[in-house]
C-alpha cells in the first residue's frame, strides 16, 4: 500500500466505525430490509479493509460476490418470504438477550486479551501487493488444486440443491405414460395465482 501512514490510519478508523455501526444495525434493527442494506455496507467496508491489507484481488472478489450476489440473494429471499408478522412474545426473552450479550462480551474480552497478549511473529518481508493476483493463481493450480476443483463441484451441488429445495413440490397422481417426451421436464405444482389485491400489495 503506497498511501501515507496517516491516511491509512484515518481510513482504517472510518472503515472500522462504519463496519461496527452497520453490523450493530444488522443485528438490532427491527426492519429486516434495513438490515439487508446495512449488511451491504458491512461487506463494502470489509472490502476496504482488504485494500488496506494489500489484497486488491480479494477486495474486488468480496464486492462482486458478497455485495453483488449474496446480498442481492438475501434481498430476494426477504421479498419472497415477505410476511410482516408480529412474533408472539416469549416468556423471559430479555433474560436470554442479557445472557447472550454477557456471553458475547465475555468472548470478546477473552479474544482481546489473547490478541493483545500473544507475541505475534511479525514478518519483515515486503508485501507482494498487486503481485498477489498472480500468486493466488499459482496457488490455485499447484498446491491448492484439489480444493479448487472440489469447490467447483460443491458450487454445482449447491446450485442443483437450491433449485430442488426451493421448487414447488409436485406429486403426480398417475405416472405419465409419455416418458420420452417428459424425461427432461421437472414436474412442478402449478402456482396458486394470488390476486393482486390491496392487502397483498401492502403486506
Amino acid at each position, binding site marked *: 500500500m503506497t498511501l501515507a501512514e496517516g491516511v491509512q490510519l484515518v481510513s482504517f478508523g472510518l472503515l472500522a466505525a462504519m*463496519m461496527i455501526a452497520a453490523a450493530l444495525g444488522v443485528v438490532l434493527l427491527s426492519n429486516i430490509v434495513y438490515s439487508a442494506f446495512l449488511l451491504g455496507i458491512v461487506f463494502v467496508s470489509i472490502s476496504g479493509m482488504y485494500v488496506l491489507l494489500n*489484497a486488491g484481488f*480479494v477486495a474486488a472478489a468480496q464486492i462482486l460476490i*458478497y455485495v453483488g450476489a449474496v446480498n442481492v*440473494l438475501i434481498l430476494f429471499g426477504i421479498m419472497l418470504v415477505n410476511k410482516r*408478522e408480529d412474533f408472539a412474545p416469549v416468556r423471559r426473552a430479555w433474560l436470554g438477550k442479557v445472557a447472550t450479550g454477557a456471553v458475547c462480551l465475555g468472548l470478546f474480552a477473552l479474544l482481546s486479551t489473547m490478541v493483545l497478549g500473544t507475541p505475534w511473529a511479525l514478518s519483515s*518481508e515486503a*508485501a*507482494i501487493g498487486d503481485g498477489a493476483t498472480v500468486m493466488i493463481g499459482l496457488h490455485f493450480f499447484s498446491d491448492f488444486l484439489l480444493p479448487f476443483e472440489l469447490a467447483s463441484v460443491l458450487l454445482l451441488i449447491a446450485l442443483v440443491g437450491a433449485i430442488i429445495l*426451493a421448487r414447488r413440490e409436485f406429486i403426480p397422481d398417475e405416472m405419465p405414460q409419455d416418458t420420452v417426451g417428459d424425461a427432461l421436464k421437472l414436474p412442478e405444482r402449478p402456482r396458486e395465482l394470488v390476486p393482486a389485491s390491496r392487502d397483498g400489495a401492502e403486506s
Partner: protein
Amino acid sequence: MIQLEYFLLLAAALFCIGIYGLVTSRNVIRVLMSIELMLNAVNLNLMAFSNYLDPASATGQVFTVFVITIAAAEASVGLAIVLSIYRNRDTVDMEQFNLLKW
C-alpha cells in the same frame, strides 16, 4: 502504522456481534445474515494474518477466496431451505420451527 492487533480486535468484535445476532434473532433471514457476518470476521482474520505474518506467499488470500466460495453456496442453500420451511409452516419465526424438538 496500523498494527495487526487492530484488525484482530475488529474481527473479534464483528464475530461477537454475529454470535449475538445468531442467538437472539427471531427472523430466519436475520440468522442467515448473522452467519454471513461471522464468516466475514473470519475472513478478515485470515487476510490480516496473511498480510502481517506471511506477506510473500498469499496463502491467506487463497483461503479467503475459498471461504467466500463456500459462503456463497451456503447462502443459496440456506435461503432455499428457508423458502421451503416458509411454505410448510407459513412463518419465519425461529421459535415456531420446533418440529424436531424433544
